[in-house]
């Protein structure tokens, strides 16, 4: 019967099903669903197809424990993440002192001729005094809440600055949450992406991701509209398998890992003009 139906024209198979449904209601048997809309028709067709399947059904028990236990201790070195990120031809720096930070950013600005940068409105970036450091180098910094056409502006910028909600050590993956002030285009449109990550926001491996995502889903506001996991920079090998960087998004990613206590010990005092 199954074999015959497989080679029948679709309409005919559907006619037979409809006839069966009609027959069963004539016989006074209760239909599982009242067929009224496309949705219900589709679902009832699927249910019909699954009749007689013995496989295991129903929810699997879900591990609801908080993700806090997944975070690795601050004193674990950054080595593994650095190795992974550099293997993807991106840059990783661990920053212990404000002088290191200034030097790295100076090199970045010079190498990529950064004149305009866009950044997230994130408390960490404000604590780090990024605006003042880059401003001193003559870089213009813009934030979304003060702009009319944020997407067009981001497309003009040479640098996009974000933080990351988490970093997976095993793969060098940055996990970014989208929220008001923490937009998607900042890490996407400029040719260089710079991300800051605190040592307390590190996960050992990818196996920790499901629990992290579920812990966000369990928050009252639910999951953000977009969670973006970034491992390396935009690339393609669609022409003769030649790897080319920056096909659509950034061609280079800088990740700056902060040493334990860096942002507290070296908190910048925002000046009036830099306050957001």
């Amino acid at each position, binding site marked *: 019967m199954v074999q015959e139906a497989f*080679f029948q024209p679709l309409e005919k198979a559907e006619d037979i099903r409809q006839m069966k449904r009609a027959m069963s209601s004539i016989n006074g048997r209760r239909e599982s669903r009242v067929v009224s809309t496309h949705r219900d028709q589709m679902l009832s067709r699927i249910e019909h197809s*699954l009749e007689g399947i013995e496989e295991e059904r129903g929810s699997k028990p879900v591990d609801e424990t908080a993700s806090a236990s997944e975070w690795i201790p601050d004193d674990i070195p950054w080595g593994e993440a650095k190795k992974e990120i550099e293997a993807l031809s991106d840059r990783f720096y661990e920053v212990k002192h404000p002088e290191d930070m200034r030097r790295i950013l100076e090199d970045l600005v010079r190498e990529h001729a950064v004149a305009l940068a866009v950044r997230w409105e994130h408390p960490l970036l404000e604590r780090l005094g990024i605006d003042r450091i880059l401003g001193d180098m003559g870089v213009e910094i813009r934030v979304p809440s003060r702009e009319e056409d944020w*997407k067009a502006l981001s497309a003009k910028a040479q640098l996009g600055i974000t933080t990351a909600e988490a970093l997976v050590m095993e793969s060098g*993956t940055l996990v970014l949450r989208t929220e008001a002030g923490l937009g998607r*285009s900042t890490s996407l449109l400029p040719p260089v992406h710079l991300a800051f990550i605190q040592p307390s926001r590190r996960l050992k491996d990818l196996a920790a991701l499901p629990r992290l995502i579920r812990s966000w889903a369990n928050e009252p506001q639910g999951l953000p509209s977009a969670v973006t996991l970034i491992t390396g920079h935009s690339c393609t090998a669609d022409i003769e398998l030649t790897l080319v960087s920056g096909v659509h998004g950034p061609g280079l990613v800088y990740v700056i890992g902060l040493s334990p206590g860096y942002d507290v010990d070296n908190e910048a005092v925002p000046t009036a003009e830099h306050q957001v």
Partner: protein
Amino acid sequence: MELRVEEIKQKAAEAARNEVLHQTLSTAGDRFVALREAGFSQLNDPEGLRIRGRKVKERSLADLPRLLRLLEKKVTDAGGVVHWAKDAAEARSIILDLADRYGVKTVVKGKSMMTEEIGLNRAFSRKGIEVWETDLGEFIVQLADEIPSHIIAPAIHKNKEEVARLFCEKLGVPYTVNPEELTMVARRTLREKFLGADMGITGGNMLVAETGTLVLFENEGNIRMSTSLPRVHVALIGIEKVVESWDDFGVLLTLLSRSAAGQKMPTYLSLITGPRKPGERDGPEAFHLVLLDNGRSRILGDEVFRESLFCLRCGACLNVCPVYKRIGGHSYGWVYSGPIGILLNSELLPPGSARDLPYASTLCGACVEVCPVMIDHPKLILEFRRRLVEDPVWKGRRVLSRIVPIKIYAWISVRPVLFRFAGSMARTFQALLAPSGEWKWLPKAVARWGAERRVPWFKRPFSSRWKKLKTSGK
């Protein structure tokens, strides 16, 4: 480009003679295979993971109605809209209506086999809506008016000289064979389109029912662009892609990224839950999820072929297939190619239109070895062949093309008068029908039968030539 699965033999024969294509596909195949092997060798228990992956798909499909209802609720709670399309025509009409409703003039598309499956680009073009493929490989294929020839490397059949000529002709840029420069041409062209597009259309690698989240894998960033910049995002995805939980996602994530290109993670993994929220400055204002059946529920009801719905579209089975490496993706005549293409094309296309496909396999089993969810392609292909010979239409054709002619011949051959008459008729009309042994004219119904057969030259019987031969002394 018209998709014509009936022409598989002709296309395959042409492709098999193309040595450049063969070389390109072999090199690419070997590269992908090495990447996959390196990726899997880092895992502690790759076989255990494949078994878990298979279990996830088995469990999800067995529970599909509940998961789809849960998904619908969660997507709706997050502010998205769910549409249900039973076939390609319905899906096209839903998406065209949306384009109409939002006043869409330009569409950017992320790579999606589903939109190829429903022929969406042609539908947009007919409506006068500008549509741009944005994955570099798909962009090349669109400019060349072709279809993708590999699931994850759509333009694998084109060399850089061909791409250079194409860009030169269609985009009016100077000729260059440097892949980096060619890629930058595409970046500049498409960046403009992304910023001006009204609607972004993507497929989806997974749907996580517990939160109503669409999961998208990519390396280029074009999918992020398509889901971040236009004001409307439409995702078209097959009903079989839904899984229940983030734990299921975790299992398939590892399998898919390592099987496709040996990566621990794709460059970008986007988890989309509804449209943008208040205060966000980018991301779509509206999110529409179109769930497509298009024959999948029929496959689900078949206890043997159900397994082909486990496919994650990683492309690993193509890279190891000796037949694919010889004939290329276009020979499979429709959207999907390689071992999984034989199954999906045969199952999803109208019955009878892909009868030759199950024979485009050596049944060597290399595909089973690499499939992340252990689909047994050879077993399914053999089952296809078995059902084909038992299929009444196929049987009817066999009776007409073989048994009936033999019976007629047998009947005539024992009646000498009739036999001589038939012989003289054959000699008379042979020059007209098959002058050089090849059929010149045949009714359409038997043309395929005749294409593979040469006609012997009918001579007068020896007995009637004997007298003449004797007198001429030969």
